[in-house]
C-alpha cells in the first residue's frame, strides 16, 4: 500500500479537477468550433447560392435573347459578366446547336456548387448554362477562422486553468491536506483530543466537514465507553446463563428418571393386577355354571361381577398400551388385505355389545375399495374402541360404520344416534381419563382411556381422529388414515 503522504502530484485533487475541466473545455471548444464551421459553411454556401440565384434573375434573360439571335459575341460577353459574379469559377454554355464554350476554371469537384440553367426562347430549348461556383475561398476562410478560434480558446483555457489552480489550492486542497493530516493522527488512544483543523466558525463545506469529523470523534469516544460497559455486563449475564442451563439439564434428567420409574411401576402393577383378575374371572365362570339353573338371581349378580372384572381387565390393557406408547416401543405391522377380512372379527366382538344396548348396526363399504394397506390389529383396536363407545352411549338406536376412500388413504366413520357431546367438552375428549360428561361416566362405565389411546394410535399410524357431534342428535367419529390405499395392483 502506498504511503498517503508520498507522491503529491498523484493525489493532487486540484490538478485532476483542472485536468478534467480542461478536457471538458477543450471538448466544448472543439464542438463549438465545429458548430461555427457548420454555420459559416452554410452562410458561405448560401452566399454562393444567392449569387447563382442572382445570375438566374439578372443574366439568363439576356443570354437567352442573345443566344436566340445568334449574337455570339454578346453571348460571350454576357458569360464573362456571369463569370464576374461572386463565387463563380466557371461558366459553360452548351447549345443545342452543338457549340460548347467554357470560361474560367472549374473548381475541385468536392468544393463546387453547380447550377444548370436551361436556356429557352418560347418553347425552343436553346441550350444549357452550367455555372460552377467555387467554395475554395469559403473553405480557406473557414480553416483560418477555426484555427484562430481554437488557438484563442486554448490560450484562454490555459490561463484560466492556471489561475483556478492557484485559487483551488488556497481554498480547497491545502485545507483538505491539513484535515487529512489531523484525521490520520486520530487513533483510539487519541480520541479524547480534539482535531487541530476544526474551525471556530463554519464558512463553507470543508469547515462543516471538519466539524462533522470532530463530532464523529466525540461520538466514537462515547461509543467506545458504552461498549466497554456493555461488554462487562454481557460477561456477567453469560455466567448466569451457564448456571441456569446446568440446572435445567439436571431437572430434565430427574424428570426422565421419574417418568421411566412411573412407566416401570405402571407395567409391573398392571401385570400384578392382571393375574388375580384372571383368577376372579375364571372363578366367577365356574360358579356361574352351577348357579345358572339353581339360583337365577345369584347368577345375574355373578354376571355383573364378571362384566366388572372384564371392564377392569380392559382398563389394565389400555393402561399397558399407553405405557408402551409413551415409551415408544410400539411397532406397526402393515399388510394389504380385504376390507371384509379387516372388519369381520370386529363384527364378532360387536354382537354382545349390540345385544346389551338394543342398537341396530349398519355397515357400508365403498365398492371400489377392494383392498386396504394398514396395520389391521391397531386399526381394529381403534374401531373397536369407537364402536364400543357408541354402543355404550346409545340405547335402542343405530350404529353405523362406513369405509370410504379419502385421497390416497381411507376414512372410517362411526356414527351413532346417541345423546351427543356438548361443544365445550369436545376439546377434552382425547385427553386420558376424561369423559365428556362426568355424569355420563357414572351412568356408563369406562375409564376414559379409550379415546386417548385411539388418538395416540391414529397419530402413530400417520392419521387422525375427528369428531362431530350435536347434543340430542348423535356423534360421528372419523378415522383418517392417509396412504392406506395400496399403490400397486
Amino acid at each position, binding site marked *: 500500500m502506498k504511503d498517503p503522504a508520498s507522491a503529491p502530484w498523484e493525489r493532487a485533487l486540484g490538478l485532476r479537477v483542472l485536468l478534467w475541466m480542461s478536457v471538458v473545455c477543450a471538448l466544448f471548444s472543439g464542438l463549438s468550433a465545429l458548430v461555427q464551421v457548420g454555420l459559416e459553411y452554410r452562410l458561405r454556401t448560401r452566399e454562393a447560392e444567392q449569387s447563382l440565384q442572382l445570375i438566374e434573375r439578372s443574366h439568363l434573360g439576356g443570354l437567352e435573347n442573345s443566344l*436566340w*439571335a*445568334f*449574337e*455570339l459575341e454578346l453571348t460571350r460577353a454576357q458569360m464573362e459578366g456571369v463569370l464576374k459574379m461572386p463565387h463563380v469559377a466557371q461558366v459553360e454554355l452548351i*447549345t*443545342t*446547336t*452543338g*457549340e460548347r464554350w467554357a470560361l474560367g476554371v472549374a473548381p475541385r469537384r468536392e468544393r463546387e456548387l453547380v447550377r444548370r440553367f436551361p436556356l429557352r426562347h418560347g418553347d*425552343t430549348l*436553346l441550350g444549357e448554362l452550367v455555372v460552377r461556383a467555387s467554395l475554395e475561398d469559403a473553405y480557406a476562410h473557414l480553416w483560418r477562422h477555426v484555427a484562430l478560434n481554437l488557438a484563442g480558446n486554448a490560450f484562454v483555457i490555459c490561463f484560466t486553468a492556471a489561475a483556478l489552480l492557484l485559487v483551488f489550492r488556497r481554498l480547497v486542497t491545502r485545507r483538505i491536506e491539513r484535515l487529512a493530516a489531523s484525521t490520520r493522527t486520530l487513533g483510539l488512544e487519541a480520541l479524547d483530543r480534539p482535531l487541530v483543523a476544526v474551525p471556530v466558525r463554519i464558512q463553507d463545506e470543508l469547515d462543516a466537514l471538519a466539524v462533522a469529523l470532530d463530532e464523529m470523534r466525540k461520538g466514537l469516544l462515547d461509543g467506545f465507553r458504552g461498549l466497554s460497559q456493555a461488554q462487562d455486563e454481557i460477561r456477567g449475564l453469560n455466567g448466569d446463563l451457564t448456571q441456569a442451563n446446568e440446572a435445567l439439564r439436571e431437572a430434565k434428567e430427574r424428570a426422565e428418571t421419574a417418568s421411566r420409574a412411573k412407566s416401570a411401576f405402571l407395567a409391573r402393577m398392571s401385570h400384578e393386577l392382571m393375574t388375580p383378575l384372571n383368577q376372579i374371572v375364571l372363578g366367577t365362570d365356574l360358579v356361574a355354571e352351577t348357579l345358572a339353573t339353581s339360583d337365577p338371581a345369584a347368577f345375574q349378580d355373578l354376571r355383573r361381577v364378571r362384566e366388572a372384572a372384564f371392564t377392569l381387565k380392559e382398563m389394565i390393557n389400555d393402561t399397558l398400551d399407553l405405557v408402551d406408547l409413551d415409551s415408544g416401543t410400539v411397532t406397526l405391522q402393515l399388510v394389504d388385505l380385504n376390507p371384509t377380512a379387516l372388519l369381520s372379527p370386529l363384527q364378532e366382538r360387536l354382537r354382545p355389545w349390540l345385544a346389551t344396548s338394543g342398537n341396530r348396526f349398519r355397515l357400508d363399504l365403498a365398492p371400489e375399495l377392494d383392498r386396504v394397506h394398514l396395520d389391521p390389529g391397531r386399526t381394529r383396536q381403534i374401531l373397536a374402541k369407537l364402536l364400543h363407545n357408541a354402543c355404550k352411549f346409545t340405547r335402542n338406536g343405530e350404529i353405523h360404520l362406513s369405509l370410504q376412500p379419502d385421497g390416497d388413504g381411507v376414512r372410517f366413520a362411526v356414527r351413532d344416534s346417541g345423546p351427543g357431546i356438548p361443544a365445550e367438552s369436545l376439546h377434552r375428549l382425547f385427553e386420558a381419563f376424561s369423559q365428556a360428561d362426568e355424569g355420563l361416566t357414572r351412568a356408563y362405565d369406562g375409564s376414559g382411556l379409550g379415546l386417548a389411546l385411539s388418538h395416540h394410535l391414529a397419530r402413530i399410524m400417520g392419521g387422525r381422529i375427528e369428531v362431530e357431534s350435536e347434543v340430542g342428535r348423535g356423534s360421528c367419529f372419523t378415522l383418517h388414515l392417509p396412504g392406506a390405499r395400496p399403490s400397486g395392483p
Partner: protein
Amino acid sequence: MAFGALAHAERPMRVLFVHPRNVDGFWEDVSSAMGEAARQLGIHLEVETAPRWPTERLPQVERWLTGAHRPDYLITTTNRLMGAQEIALAERLGVPVFLVNAGMLERDRSQAGAPRERHKGWLGEMLPDEARAGRELAEALLEEARRRRLLGGNLPVEMLALGGQEVTSSGVGRNQGLLAFVEGQSEVRLPQVVPSHYNPDLARSRVRPMLRRYPEARMLWCASDQVALAAWESASQEGRSLILGGINWHPAAIQAVQQGRMTATVGGHVLEGAFALVLLFDHHHGVDFASEGTVWRTRMLVLNRRNVDRLAPLLVTRSWHRLDFRALSRVKNPALRRHDFSLAPFLGRAR
C-alpha cells in the same frame, strides 16, 4: 433659281455627292454610275466620303459647301439621324439638297417634314422601296421552291432570314417586306429573323448554328448579297443546299445567280445617284420635277435565272457607259412628259 441657272450657264453645273464610309463597295458603285451620268450630262461631280462621327460631319459638310468649289447642288444620304440638320445647314448656305438611297427615320421625318415643305432648299429625295425589295426577294425564293417541287406537303416549308441592321431604314424596310409577305403565306413558315448587321463574317458564324437549330429549313432570305454569299459558304460547309437570295446586285452575287448558287439578287438602287443627277440636271436647266413629285421611290428589280444571263454582262462589270442617261432627261428629250426611271426598260435599252 432661274437666275442661278443663267448665271452658271458658262460653266458646267457643279454637284457634290457625300456618301457614308464604304463598307462593301456599294457607294463606289453608286459613285461610278453617277460619274458616268455626269459625264454624259456634262456635270462636274465631286464625290466625298463623310467623316465617320456625326459631330465631325456637319462642320466638314459646311467647309465643302463654302469652299472655292462651292457646288450648285448637294446630293447626300442621311446617316445616324443627321439628315434634318444637314438639310438645314445646306439651306442656310444656299445650296439645294437632294437625298438619295437612305431615307430619314421617323423622328427626323417629323422634324423636317416633306421636301419643299419646311425646307424649300430640300428639293426632293429618291429612296429605294426597301419593303418591296424584301417582299420580292421572298417571292423569288418561294417561286424557286415551287419550281423545285418542295411545296405542297403537309407542313409549310421553313424559310430562315438573316436580317439587316435594325437601326437603318433599309434594314427595317427589307425586314418589314419579308414579314408582310410571309404573314399572308400558308406554304411558308418563318421561325426566326436573325440579325446580320450586313456583316458577312457575322453571317458566316451564325448560319451554322441556325441550320442546326432548324434542320428542316430549305430557304434563306438575306438582307444583302454579301451576307448571302457568306451564308452560302457556311451552308455548303454544313452540307446543306439552300434556296438563297440577297439584295444589292453585288457582282459576285449576280455571278452566283448565274451559276445557280444563289436563286436571286434584288437591286437597282445603285443607280439612284445617277437618276438624281438627271433630275437635278433638268432642275438646273429649268425643268423642275416637283410637278411629278418630290419623293421618288425606286422599285428594285429581281435578277434571277430568267433575266440574269441577259443583264449580267452589264451589271457584273458595272459597264455604266452602256447605259444612256441622257435618254432619261426631259431637258435633253423635250418630248418626254414624265421622268421614268423603271429599271427593266432602262437596262433593256443598254447598248
